[in-house]
């Protein structure tokens, strides 16, 4: 995979560039929106929730803590859903290309990762500035979540390839995935803390593989907690399994896939 990534770096770079070019077409601010959008989002969550509505976390009484809590979960959740929902149309949106020109198909998921990764990096940079300004920036804790992020991205990519492949054959997959993601969002402690959820719902939410992942981000942002990897075993195993399964599925259906486009 890494070797093919290097061999086709021109193609992958071109697909990524094309994606950003398409977004800046007929927009006078062009790529500026890549910065403005997440900045506004972060401002809304920290200021509106934290300052205007004065929502408080049970565990942390600082005025902006709730806003930071939401941001920690939401920015990473956005990365996750971006990968999955863009993965849904990964092959369909490149139908003519796949049908008319021979090129390594693995370039498509790789360029998807790079595009969403760049967007995510921009929002993380903005968020880091906010943390610095608030004096809550803890570099070591934040670095410790990088492996957690890798697990989440692996899971997202596996799901993206799976739904992207199946979507070509069954359009129902598109609707199902979007509904499923909505449920998943509310079943993950992103806008609420896990501690306020009563049993038995709480034990269900604890089984959600994203719960420990999101928990690690929130802990790192609010408490400067270094991610503990004990809880992350099951999500990591799941990510590896889904990724391997998705690749097998893609390989098995690859030939039929182009015929169906």
């Amino acid at each position, binding site marked *: 995979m890494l070797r093919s990534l290097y061999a086709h770096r*021109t193609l992958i770079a071109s697909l990524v560039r094309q994606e950003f070019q398409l977004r800046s*077409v007929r927009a006078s601010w062009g790529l500026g929106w890549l910065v403005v959008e997440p900045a506004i989002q972060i401002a809304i969550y920290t200021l509106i929730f934290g300052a205007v509505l004065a929502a408080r976390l049970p565990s942390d009484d600082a005025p902006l803590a709730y806003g930071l809590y939401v941001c920690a979960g939401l920015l990473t959740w956005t990365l996750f859903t971006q990968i999955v929902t863009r993965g849904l149309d990964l092959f369909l949106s490149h139908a003519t*290309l796949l049908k008319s020109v021979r090129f390594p198909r693995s370039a498509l998921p790789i360029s998807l990762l790079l595009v969403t990764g760049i967007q995510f990096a921009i929002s993380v940079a903005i968020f880091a500035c906010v943390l610095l300004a608030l004096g809550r920036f803890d570099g070591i804790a934040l670095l410790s979540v990088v492996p957690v992020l890798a697990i989440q991205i692996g899971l997202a990519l596996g799901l993206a390839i799976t739904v992207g492949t199946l979507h070509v*054959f069954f359009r129902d997959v598109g609707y199902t995935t979007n509904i499923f993601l909505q449920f998943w969002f509310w079943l993950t402690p992103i806008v609420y803390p896990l501690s306020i959820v009563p049993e038995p719902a709480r034990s269900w939410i604890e089984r959600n593989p994203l719960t420990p992942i999101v928990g690690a981000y929130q802990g790192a942002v609010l408490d400067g907690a270094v991610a503990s990897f004990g809880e992350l075993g099951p999500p990591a195993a799941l990510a590896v399994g889904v990724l391997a399964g998705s690749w097998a599925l893609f390989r098995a259906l690859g030939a039929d896939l*182009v*015929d169906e486009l």
Partner: protein
Amino acid sequence: MGGLRATGIEKTYRSYRRPGARLVDWLSLGRAHRAREKHALRGVSFEVRPGEAVGLVGANGAGKSTLLGVLKGTIEPTAGDVEIEGRAVGLDLGLGFRDDLTGYDNLIASGALLGLSRREVDASLDEVLAFAELDDVLGDPVRTYSSGMRLRLAFALATVERPDILLIDEALSVGDAYFQQKCIHRIRRFHAAGTTLILVSHDPSAITTLCDRALLLDGGLVIRDGRPREVLEYYNAWLARRTDGENIDQRSIGRSGTTSTRSGNREATIEDLVLSCEGQPRDQVVVGETVDLAILARAHAPLDDLTVGISLRDRLGNEVFGTNTYLLGVESPPIEAGSTFTARFRFVAELGPGDYSVTAALHAGRVHVENSYDWWDNVSTFSVLPDGPPRFQGTARLPIEATIEREDGPRDRSD
């Protein structure tokens, strides 16, 4: 470099009436068969030597485009494999263009698909633009281009470097005549330099002028493999046969090994074809002589809508002139079964010196595919001899006049 070998290529398309049916097939692990299978290719094998130019011909649905897709690598065959030596390039790059991006951005993106870096594309930009003649609109979104302009840009980029194998789709027919000529010129130059060509076309003249071999596909099989002219004649005859259910008879005639192909339902048959000048049968005529061409034929069924057609072809198989009694507005009297009849054409041989072949056809109505009685490619051949020192080139002697006039002389300085 440039060789290609296809071995036992099969391609089966599966389609399902409902998406659920596919799910049943998948979940039963192949025990349920809910798919409707379409066998686009049923075992195609052939070998192309480096530098050969091969045309793929056949009716719609014969499998030509599927085969080209398999050779290009965009369609994965169900069975069999393709070995390609060297760099193969297809010409439908323009299909991948993004409407909202500029011509330049699309060039860079398409270059990446060909494995060219941005710098490499930039380096050959002048050459690409010189060929495509699109300098002034390069910064405009491709959305504003015509289909011909897209083709020009894609063709110019795909052919900026000579590939070992060029796979040409019908896409080429999109361009205007000027650009088509330009493309064909470049394709010819590549071929002369050793590029292998694989060409899919419905245009017989493209096949005969560019290719030195043709494959006729039908029902996913190669049913004929030979010289383009022979294969095209067979194809033509075979097209007529599809409506008539008759056998095709192909054999060699004449000195140059020209093949004669005959088909039709034989409700009427061509018995003889006689070429004469001033009443004398001839197989050689001089440029400008008046030629009488008589087709002697017999009816085996009553014919009330008879059309008799002729066509002259040059040495390469290009049609020089063709017409029929329907197009000429000549009505045929009703002809009873068992009677004989003669159709006569008189023309002036304003033809360039060289060898020509005559094709004759008897059919009902306007076109031969509707109800073809007897279609006989290359019934006979004749030669046109020069009438003196050569005064023109080509196969057609057009009525022509030429003058040279002095518009304005140099100043007279003698005063």
